[in-house]
């Protein structure tokens, strides 16, 4: 366990020192800061648009950070040969991979925390320093964090056997597909003309694909008039789903990484 923690903390340190990630973070924060100045709409529209934009910026920036952070993680260690130093110590490969993943998730969490702080501060100012409603707002970045942890797991899994550039597009494509498939499956399900075989196939894909759309829970937060029963239960279920999927990907990654010549 100690070796996992030690690899994770080192990874966090490395991530924070990476200029490219800091620049992406800075751009994201810059957008968050200027977003309230965009357009003068009606009071309700302004809040709706601002919430939508700020949450979108956090999600988009986090996705880019998650992919950029993780696709290079394992290949860089192999390329720089630092992996030999680590693996020559009493550290198992699974511990190395798990440590790297946890470090990436921790670094991602720190960066998302910073963006969420800007979001909260902006709304605190906008609401005349009132804290009401801010707790609801935070639910979205929390779910994005689970989503991005899942995305990082996808990237880590691919990084055990493909080159970083290929991994970048593969993970990005998987994110897009995983975001699209829930609505696509729903349309297929509700369409009268879809052949049963196609429905069955879509159901199969929907079951095995990482469904990133499960974490896009921002709409009721952006448009607060909606009545949703027990959203907390859904958040919990989606989080458990994420943990299970991350577990699957990490196990697969460990199995592949274990068999890989480095």
């Amino acid at each position, binding site marked *: 366990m100690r070796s996992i923690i030690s690899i994770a903390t080192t990874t966090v340190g490395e991530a924070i020192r990476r200029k490219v990630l800091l620049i992406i973070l800075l751009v994201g924060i810059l957008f968050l800061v200027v977003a309230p100045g*965009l*357009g*003068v*709409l009606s009071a*309700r*529209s302004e809040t*709706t*648009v*601002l*919430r*939508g*934009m700020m*949450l*979108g*910026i956090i*999600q*988009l920036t986090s996705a880019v950070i998650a992919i950029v952070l993780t696709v290079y993680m394992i290949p860089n260690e192999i390329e720089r040969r630092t992996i030999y130093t680590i693996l020559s110590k009493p550290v198992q490969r*699974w511990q190395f991979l798990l440590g790297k993943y946890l470090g990436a998730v921790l670094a991602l969490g720190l960066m998302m925390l910073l963006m969420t702080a800007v979001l909260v501060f902006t709304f605190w100012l906008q609401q005349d320093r009132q804290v009401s409603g801010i707790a609801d707002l935070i639910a979205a970045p929390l779910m994005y964090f689970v989503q991005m942890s899942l995305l990082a797991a996808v990237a880590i899994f691919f990084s055990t056997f493909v080159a970083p550039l290929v991994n970048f597009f593969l993970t990005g494509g998987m994110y*897009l597909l995983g*975001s*699209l498939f*829930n*609505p*696509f*499956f*729903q*349309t297929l399900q*509700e369409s009268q003309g879809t052949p049963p075989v196609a429905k069955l196939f879509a*159901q199969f894909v*929907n*079951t095995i694909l990482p*469904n990133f*759309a*499960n*974490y*896009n*829970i*921002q*709409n*009721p937060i*952006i*448009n607060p*008039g*909606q009545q*949703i029963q027990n*959203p907390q239960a*859904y958040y919990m*279920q*989606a989080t*458990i*789903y994420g943990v*299970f*999927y991350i*577990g*699957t990907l990490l*196990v697969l990654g*460990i*199995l592949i990484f*274990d*068999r890989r010549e480095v």
Partner: protein
Amino acid sequence: MIRKPSTLLLAIGAICFLGQAALQRGVIFDKWKKDYSPGRGQMVAGGLSPDQMLFALTGFREMVAGILWVRADSFFDTGNYDAILPIIRLVTILDPKQIDVYATGMWHIGYNFTDEEQRSDRRYIPSALALGKEGARQNPNTYEMFFETGWMWYHKIDDDYGQAVKWFNEAQKREDMLVARKNLLSNAYERNGQVPEGIETLYTLYESAAETAEADKQAFGNKQNKETLENKLDTAIVRMIQRGFIAEKEGRPLVGYDVYPPFDVNFSAKVTVIDPRVLKVEGSYGVLPVGTRIRIVLKDVDFPNSVPAGMEWDSSNDVNLDPPKKSTFMQDQLFIRNRKFNRKIDMSKDPTMYPFTGQDYLVEFYYNPRSAPPHIQDKFGFNGEGFTDKNFLNTEVREGQRVLYTTLKLTRDQILRRGEWKDKVPVVKTSNFVETGRNYFGDDSLTIDLPSLRN
């Protein structure tokens, strides 16, 4: 050295995989579909390009919707109305929960497309209503789109008040309905000929307002609302009596009530095509008080979904931003002054709105006492009991209602002053039209005797 995979690891992997699959299939997808899906299972995809569709389905749809809405706002400021329509459509698809966009879009489509003389392009109204219906379907928990759709029927279409009643009633069922807006339901009932239901609504609202006012005596708004309702109720009851509504319900003769005897408005009209696409409409209507407006419609004889003096407004469930552009539908009001009307209708500056591609056109004149202002209704009654016209009273074009309705015909060549009409002035008129110069009425006995309230 490559090791054999550990059984424990494989077991963990299998449990995780099966766990995620069970959660996704058993719980999450259904709940996601119910609460978080774009459009809650009523996703509208028609007319979307693949890139728009991509945005609509990914997680960034609210962000993109926000950016587009800000852009649309800048188009409002610059008056670039045509550019706003596709943006509104896209925003409502991206985020069907943005009620402001639905409400603004509906108003924009229904009211803002006008010609040079500020006449609305009514070919858009079915689309505006379709947007309203979609907005209500997507946001069933709030009153807003139900009210907005009702308002479109009540105010803009100003004809089929049964629809206004239906939508206002739906709005009333929602808890967040604004108190001040609730009163409109009684007006809609009244205009729909359901006077007792209107009174009943006022009583219910009054009781609730009285309770609220009693509970918080300091709140001025509560007191004001109660007094407004009290006043409305009082006026409505007096009107019911004076207009002979109760007497009629009880089968008593209407002699002695304000609506008796029915007043003959003696309508006549003449339409002259004074220039290509420019009409001069003049005629008589024997009502002296101001506030009377006769509807005039000029449309293709074969206008799609046509009904007398209108169209099937509720004919579309799809928000089609391209109305029937080859068809012409002009609707305007003829304001009565000194018992006559005289209006120039210029359609020459807006060929897109008035394409005149068909061969034959219908000019329709329509007056429904239900749409009349209260001081006119004091004579004509709630349902036109005190209204008649010896030539053009019609009880068929609006089933069970006493309205004025007649038509004249024009051809495309006449309207465009082409062919044989190049040098001749086309004139069409009702058979009873009399050229009387400035005054259509020589006999003062035709003047309406306008009753005053509570005399």
